[in-house]
């Protein structure tokens, strides 16, 4: 049994930023499924938004303009009070990372360089070549080391223990030994990242299985807006590995099999830099209508940028294209396709990072505050991790500092642990024969075929039925491999259970939203419907299907208007 004031679940950028802040007030540790340096934040490429006004042509940029772009990009589903926090605190959080040594690229004047990103009125995206996430992640980890914050790495959290609306403890499995343990805590921060791996085509890391969302959902917390899944326009074909939006920000063209820059037809003004949902759908339409290359992908052409610019601004992109697609973008266009990229929905929480459970906080991609609404702008997710990670850490740290430990005896925690161990032991028993890898692939394919860029009532119903079937089959799982140490079979089975729960939430949330908004496009309801659906979807766990409720969108400054590109 371990006892700490604050437990941060997740060692990515949000989790580490939260731990750094919380450690100022209370004994704080990070519990993470992988070592922090292996987190998916490190795969972010393009950059992080803040109205610094460092570039020629962006001197009059300010947080309000950043807020407007974010809200407009969200198709007016973002909560405007949260967006205000995000955009106001953006410059401070980025300067802080710079002061901690993050090696941002520089302007000629020596300031942090900024580039154009889709949906933004100004060059606002601060970048460090095309490896911004990697450099931010390493910088945050250096600060964690400096503060000697303890990290329990390669621990997989299996459940949250909540009693009378308060967080009590966390159950986790030590992957390297196979032992389960209780982590007693006064406060817990969820910072576990997204759920991209429920889709067959995804730019996400393979660890992005949404387990943090699932354990919160199982503990009775609502999942908000889960039908909003962002598809990135430029994932490499066929692996789904990301090519940054920065490649278009630097001037890259999207070209179909006829050699046309087809974005002229879909977004004549913004062209390749239209918001991600618009570009993704345009690419899909080109392929669907027979103008894809080999009917499968389209081309991202960087050749006209020249060797020097590609080498200085997009070196990582070039390496990825060479390694994983076998093309050198200096000489050849990159084959690309849309793929799942980001989970806009997540654990319901407010701008103080509080969930409905006292002492439980959330931040980053696992949570929904909501700053991204129906569609996230590129460069806002890294920003969200830092802004809300810091707030979550501050809130949890001060909360834990000011309450005394509850007087409960260790034996009660021990009982909870025993029942968790029994639950896990169940996976090793039985005589059924459903193969988890088959179930996983069927789930991922179903989601990518039926709950993708264009949705219909019919397809969503089929997906719902399929997910229900997979959940039933999951109960007839073959016994998993019996070894204790590093049991991938077990971890992957636990993750599959979580992913199926989240798939169920997505296919329960999407049909009720009979409109098209941001990333959620219904062919049977092609228009946005503010009268009925300017509201958030909340999904609660029940013994049967998820219960769907709705909550108001917070509108402060900007009234909904039609979104044109």
């Amino acid at each position, binding site marked *: 049994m371990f006892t700490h004031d604050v437990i941060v679940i997740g060692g990515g950028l949000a989790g580490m930023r939260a731990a750094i802040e919380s450690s100022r007030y209370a004994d704080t540790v990070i519990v993470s499924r992988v070592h922090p340096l292996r987190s*998916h934040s490190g795969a972010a490429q393009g950059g992080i938004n803040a109205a610094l006004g460092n570039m020629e042509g962006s001197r009059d940029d300010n947080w309000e303009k950043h807020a407007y772009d974010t809200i407009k990009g969200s198709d007016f589903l973002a909560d405007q009070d949260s967006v205000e926090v995000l955009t106001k605190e953006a410059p401070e959080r980025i300067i802080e990372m710079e002061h901690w040594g993050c*090696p*941002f690229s520089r302007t000629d004047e020596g300031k942090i360089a900024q580039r154009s990103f889709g949906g933004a009125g100004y060059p606002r995206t601060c970048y460090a070549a095309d490896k911004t996430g990697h450099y931010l992640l390493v910088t945050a980890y250096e600060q964690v080391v400096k503060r000697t914050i303890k990290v329990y790495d390669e621990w997989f959290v299996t459940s949250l223990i909540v009693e009378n609306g308060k967080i009590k403890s966390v159950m986790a499995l030590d992957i390297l030994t196979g032992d389960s343990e209780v982590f007693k805590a006064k406060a817990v921060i969820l910072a576990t990242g997204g759920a991209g791996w429920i889709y067959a085509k995804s730019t996400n890391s393979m660890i992005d299985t949404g387990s943090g969302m699932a354990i919160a959902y199982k503990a009775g917390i609502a999942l908000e807006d889960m039908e909003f899944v962002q598809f990135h326009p430029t994932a490499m074909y066929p692996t789904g*590995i990301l090519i940054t939006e920065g490649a278009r920000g630097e001037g890259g063209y999207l070209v179909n099999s006829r050699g046309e820059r087809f974005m002229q037809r879909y977004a004549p003004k913004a062209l390749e830099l239209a918001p991600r949902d618009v570009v993704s759908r345009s690419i899909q339409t080109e392929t669907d209508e027979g103008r894809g290359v080999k009917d499968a992908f389209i081309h991202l052409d960087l050749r006209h940028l020249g060797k020097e610019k590609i080498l200085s601004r997009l070196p990582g992109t070039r390496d990825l294209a060479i*390694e*994983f697609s076998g093309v050198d973008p200096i000489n050849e266009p990159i084959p690309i396709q849309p793929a799942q990229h980001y989970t806009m929905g997540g654990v319901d929480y407010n701008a103080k990072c509080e969930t409905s459970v006292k002492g439980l906080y959330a931040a980053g991609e696992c949570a929904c505050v909501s700053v991204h609404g129906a569609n996230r702008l590129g460069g806002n997710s890294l920003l969200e991790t830092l802004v809300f990670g810091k707030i979550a850490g501050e809130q949890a740290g001060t909360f834990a500092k000011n309450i005394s430990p509850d007087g409960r005896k260790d034996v009660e925690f021990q009982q909870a642990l025993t029942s968790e161990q029994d639950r896990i032991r169940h996976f090793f028993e039985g005589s059924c024969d459903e193969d988890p890898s088959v179930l996983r692939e069927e789930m991922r394919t179903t989601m990518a075929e039926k709950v993708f860029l264009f949705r219909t009532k019919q397809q969503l119903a089929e997906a719902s039925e399929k997910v229900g079937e997979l959940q039933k089959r999951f109960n007839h799982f073959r016994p998993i491999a019996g070894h204790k140490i590093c049991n991938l079979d077990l971890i992957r089975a636990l993750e599959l259970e979580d992913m199926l729960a989240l798939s169920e939430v997505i296919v329960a949330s999407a049909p009720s939203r009979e409109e098209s908004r941001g990333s959620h496009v219904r062919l049977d309801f092609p228009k946005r419907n503010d009268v009925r659906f300017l509201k958030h979807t909340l999904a609660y766990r029940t013994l049967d299907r998820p219960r769907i409720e709705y909550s108001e969108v917070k509108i402060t400054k900007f009234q909904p208007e039609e979104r044109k590109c």
Partner: protein
Amino acid sequence: MLKPALGKVQIRIQRFDPETDPAPHYDTFEILTKPGMTVLDALFRVLEEKDGSLAFRYSCRSAVCGSCAMFINGRPRLACETRLSTMDSIVTIGPLPHLPVVRDLIVDLQPYYQKLDMVKPYFEARESYPEKEFIQTPKDREAIDTAIDCIDCGACFSFCPLTWTDPKYPGPAAFVKSYRFIADTRDTGKSERLKAVGCEDGVWRCHTVFSCADSCPKSINPTNFIQQLKRKATKLSILQLRPPQSGQADR
């Protein structure tokens, strides 16, 4: 585009479960390949179709997280970016060498992380911080290029003959980390950092055999940074008008 590598491949994997095995052994699995298939894909195929007890690390599968560094056909590589089409029809896979094996292809990287701590692996600026960002010219920023690209996969550390033999030797990645701060115009800990690495068990211990450079999946050349650290340490010693300490010159 990728050349298809159709056909069969033999995957020979070093196995070890400390709970049941007295010593490591090899298991061989035959798998069907598909175009573009990587070693990591092959490991998943073994895990899912042949042997659910296989253990290995993975995360990003796009060569940026450093999880899947392992010993593939005689050298450290990232499994996710090593395509089977570039390999022979028998692929031999083991854990990174010279590190304690937790199970199968998973090593204990704690020795690696602990040695990073020897070089004070975080930024420091002692003067007062500016209100906005530090001003750094693009050229000054370039000085730390590639040194900041390390993904901490541990490949160089496991492949360096000095880390095998000298327990006080921080290893190539730690020196790259140190260089990254020493060459950063914003960091103010230069002379302290140089003293920490410019000692007998520090950069002077390097035999310049370039194993680190050979093994780095991100094409970083740690030997080059080690040589630059030697130069800077020497310069600092001269500036401080004291001879190099005994044992430094002849190693």
